């Protein structure tokens, strides 16, 4: 067994240890991604090898939660992929308008920027009062931040541009109050968002919904896990419900390709067939 093979085995054992002790299951994540995050942690913590990380993860809870943060990617923006949000307004909102009550699942919402973006669009389209948004993530720290609704003022220039290019109808600064380096989003945007801890890898269906957004989450999963999560989405969506994926994600690698029609191919918006 070469040293490379040994370190691969060490990584398998580490992920097994994390799962057995803490219940977070990274065993079906992209191996190349996991290896990279673990190598980064090795360098940052000054440890010699992956077995030392394993030992520390098992005995030191603070380190373990730090390690979980390493494996949880929370990179996001408001109105990320502005043309996606434009298409959402043009192609998805008209479908939502046909429902008397709208349920939306934002899966893997991280620190909440995109859930607030959705709330803004729904408010402008006059739909927010009859909507509930379930915004879920397995990363509690990210969810806590999302709930606070406090974001860096430095990002607002970019978000304003995103908002305008996505077809925003108002002045973006009306949606937040700024104070020194931070802004806080308007309370009215929060009222119909339910923040909940849900793990796509280990948890199951919790509601029937009309729209699911899960953007740039599935890229981290191997094909078996992608299939599991797509099954979860398929079972959660009403017939004719809509699934929005990240701009480079598709259904084609999974078993669910035939079960949806493309509402907007370029923006990866799919409609569950009746």
């Amino acid at each position: 067994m070469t040293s490379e093979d040994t370190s691969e085995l060490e990584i398998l054992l580490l992920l097994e240890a994390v799962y057995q002790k803490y219940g977070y299951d990274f065993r079906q994540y992209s191996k190349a991604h996991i290896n990279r995050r673990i190598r980064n942690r090795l360098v940052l913590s000054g440890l010699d090898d992956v077995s030392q990380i394993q030992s520390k993860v098992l005995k030191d809870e603070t380190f373990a939660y730090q390690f979980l943060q390493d494996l949880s990617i929370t990179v996001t923006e408001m109105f990320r992929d502005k043309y996606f949000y434009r298409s959402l307004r043009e192609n998805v909102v008209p479908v939502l308008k046909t429902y008397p009550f709208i349920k939306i699942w934002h899966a893997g919402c991280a620190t909440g920027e995109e859930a607030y973006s959705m709330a803004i669009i729904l408010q402008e389209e006059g739909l927010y009062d009859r909507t509930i948004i379930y915004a879920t993530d397995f990363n509690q720290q990210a969810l806590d931040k999302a709930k606070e609704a406090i974001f860096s003022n430095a990002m607002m220039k970019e978000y304003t541009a995103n908002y305008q290019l996505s077809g925003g109808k108002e002045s973006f600064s009306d949606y937040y109050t700024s104070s020194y380096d931070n802004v806080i989003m308007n309370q009215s945007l929060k009222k119909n968002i339910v923040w909940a801890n849900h793990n796509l890898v280990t948890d199951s269906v919790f509601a029937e919904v009309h729209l699911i957004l899960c953007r740039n989450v599935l890229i981290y999963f191997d094909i078996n896990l992608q299939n599991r999560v797509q099954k979860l989405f398929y079972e959660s969506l009403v017939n004719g419900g809509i699934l929005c994926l990240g701009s480079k994600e598709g259904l084609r690698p999974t078993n669910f390709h035939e079960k949806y029609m493309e509402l907007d191919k370029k923006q990866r918006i799919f409609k569950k067939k009746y």
Partner: protein
Amino acid sequence: MHYDAIVIGISSGGMTALKFIFSALPAGFSIPIIVVQHISAQSDNDWANLLNEKSNVTIKEADEKEKIACGNAYIAPANYHLLIEQDRTFSITIDERVYFARPSIDVLFGSAAAAYKEKLVGIVLTGANNDGAKGIKRVKECGGLAIIQDPKTAESATMPTAAIAALLCGKLAIQPDYILPLEKIIELLIEFGKNQCRSLSGQLIKYK
């Protein structure tokens, strides 16, 4: 030596250099080429199509989970890191930028080195930052071949210079295998392509 993949990292000055490379490779060149070019997050893949017009190999944007095939060249999608799995399929991620870059050369090279080991050729070309330096070191550590554009001939010398420095520094100083101007690198690649099925004879002279 038989190589299974070539990874190329390139930044400012990249478009000209890539056009030059792809227009010079012969039809039937079969070693897959995977490119990270630093581009703005907003770019679409039109420039990949543009490159394709004058190329004998098919150039496409890498899709997630796509199997890497001989005779193809792949470009990392804008705003995503591109990684290679052990089973030689692509993964993409949207992790933090590395040296302000996403896609990052270090990320591609690190994962490619682990997947292809001694069957990998890593090439660092023109660029104005330090991305690629750590990556090319990983390529060498895993047994692959390191080719760096001669900084004197690069439109922007920073990136090849940093790559050479990274190889030479540290406990184990590693010599780059080749430091060459672009046209010589292309000749070498064509040679590797021809030698897909037999080992490379000693006629290639290492450039000092």
